[in-house]
């Protein structure tokens, strides 16, 4: 094993382990601000450090500190303390490792060696995801049961039966996908979607398998216990459901686990249906071969983009009431400067590539990999936005409606989809 090998292992594992955690901040902020904007209010924008609010990010910091320093209570009546403590750990751990097999860039070739860009380079792919998310429900069931609280127990029961009902349509939707892709390896699946149809339509899962996409996305919402399927929490009837008895960091871990799971399932949805890390219309090979024009285009686009972004910051980062020497305007200026500096640094790098890099060298490969990671994260962020968007649009299902949707609608549709797909694939040979 060379040093490069070891570095690459560290890089890949840390990306796959820490990116979901870092995205927590994005998720929570987005959740709150989107909720605010959807409801014509502003969301958290008060907490700040020396007046710097970072668009609400500082609020997360405050909440995090609050949760970390809260009194951690385990009620007297909790009999199985070990399981009680174990439950949030299971939730969180399952959420993190379910992301481990998802590729966030195309296979990177350095020094003639290929590195699969995913946390654990296994071939189990989508099956791993199905298995691990199925496992995460144990966290909820254990939490509900060991809390010795009827509300928690009811929440856990709901969650258990919900996972059973929705895992089946989800699995079936995956089957029809596999018929099309011919592989369970997510890297293969992503690469497959890098091709273009008739030269201009990307061969994304959503176009090949629209029905499977709908079923899978709906089921993924249910797996994550997100609205409209968050009956396990159901605060209006179950107070808070399974995590009712949890406080402080144990609660926080549940809370973070939910968002990490959301991130992981967004990543899977992106990989299965939205081309994964692929930049639409541009295959990895094409980018590597034409590294100089690509760098040049980016060199031009970035400042233009930044110019408008700065204007947006100026417009929105100011006090909405008459105020002398508005400190928020100064705040905006600081942000804009920081961003310009960042852009400047990137420009320097691009210039360097433009000047020295040759196609098909390590630098070109790295740049493309970076671009793909960014694309991937952008797509995942958009998917996360959909999660949030749905949550603040659709009210919660009633329990019987949830089961009817799962068993009487999604299941037959998924089966039908398999037959139709199978027939077409056979017919086309």
């Amino acid at each position, binding site marked *: 094993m060379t040093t490069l090998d070891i570095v690459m292992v560290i890089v890949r594992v840390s990306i796959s382990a820490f990116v979901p955690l870092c995205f927590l901040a994005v998720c929570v902020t987005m959740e709150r601000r989107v909720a605010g*904007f*959807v409801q*014509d209010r502003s969301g958290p924008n008060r907490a700040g450090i020396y007046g710097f609010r970072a668009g609400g990010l500082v609020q997360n910091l405050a909440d995090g500190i609050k949760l970390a320093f809260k009194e951690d209570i385990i009620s007297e009546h909790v009999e199985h303390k070990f399981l009680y403590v174990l439950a949030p750990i299971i939730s969180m751990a399952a959420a993190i490792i379910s992301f481990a097999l998802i590729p966030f860039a195309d296979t990177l070739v350095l020094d003639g060696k290929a590195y699969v860009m995913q946390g654990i380079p296994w071939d189990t792919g989508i099956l791993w995801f199905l298995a691990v998310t199925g496992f995460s429900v144990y966290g909820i069931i254990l939490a509900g049961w060991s809390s010795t609280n009827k509300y928690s127990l009811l929440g856990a029961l709901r969650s258990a039966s919900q996972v059973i009902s929705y895992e089946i349509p989800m699995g079936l939707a995956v089957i029809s996908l596999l018929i099309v892709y011919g592989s369970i390896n997510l890297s293969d699946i992503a690469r497959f979607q890098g091709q273009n149809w008739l030269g201009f339509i990307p061969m994304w899962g959503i176009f090949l398998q629209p029905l499977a996409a709908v079923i899978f996305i709906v089921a993924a919402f249910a797996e994550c216990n997100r609205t409209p399927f968050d009956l396990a929490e159901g605060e209006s009837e179950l107070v808070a459901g399974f995590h009712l008895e949890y406080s402080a960091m144990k609660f926080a871990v549940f809370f973070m686990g939910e968002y990490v799971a959301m991130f992981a399932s967004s990543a899977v949805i992106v990989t299965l249906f939205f081309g994964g890390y692929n930049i639409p219309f541009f295959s990895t090979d094409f980018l590597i071969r034409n590294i100089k024009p690509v760098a040049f285009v980016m060199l031009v686009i970035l400042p233009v983009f930044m110019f408008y972004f700065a204007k947006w910051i100026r417009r*929105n980062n100011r006090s909405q009431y008459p105020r002398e020497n508005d400190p928020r305007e100064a705040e905006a200026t600081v942000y804009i400067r920081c961003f310009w500096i960042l852009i400047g640094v990137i420009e320097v790098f691009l210039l360097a590539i433009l000047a020295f890099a040759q196609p098909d060298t390590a630098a070109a490969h790295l740049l493309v990999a970076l671009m793909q990671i960014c694309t991937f994260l952008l797509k995942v962020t958009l998917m996360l936005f959909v999660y949030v*968007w*749905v949550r*603040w*649009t*659709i009210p919660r299902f009633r329990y019987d409606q949830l089961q009817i949707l799962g068993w009487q609608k999604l299941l037959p549709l998924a089966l039908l989809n398999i037959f139709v797909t199978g027939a077409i694939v056979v017919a086309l040979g």
Partner: protein
Amino acid sequence: MAAKVKQLPSRGGTPAEKVYLIEIFKGMGITLRHFLRNLWDNSNLYVRHYPEVQPNIPAHWRGRHRLLTHSDGTPKCVACFMCQTNCPANCIMIKAGERTDGITEKMPVSFTIDLAECIYCGYCVEACPEDAIRMDTGIYAFTSSNREEMKIEMDEMLSLKGGYTEEEYQKGLEDE
């Protein structure tokens, strides 16, 4: 006052509506419109930038309680316990005693309202036969880090002044 009943047509029966997804996308379209509008320019939010921008409290707003006094400064309250009897939160605590100033025979010796328990329903104001208690101070924000401080006593309530003129207050009652 008769209840206002507005009958809305029942929704959700047509085949298109039964497919859910179409309606869901419609709904998501609405929320997305709001989101994008506010993201583009957040100056149109329906929020008041409290505490920098203070609300304008109408006269019939039920704020913090005060006890009214006669023109000579003695309390109007006669300790009839009507407010305590009617208080759904059970947060008024009165002790009655003999009154010697010749106005009536009875007056409160102590009169405590636990504002931490009060639900600001205004029943006490309505129940009072003497117009001795009102919630027209216009004070709506008071906090404390300790429960005891949320109990306000007779002297404090007697010293509070109304936030409105008598005409505004009476008009506020009519508006209600």
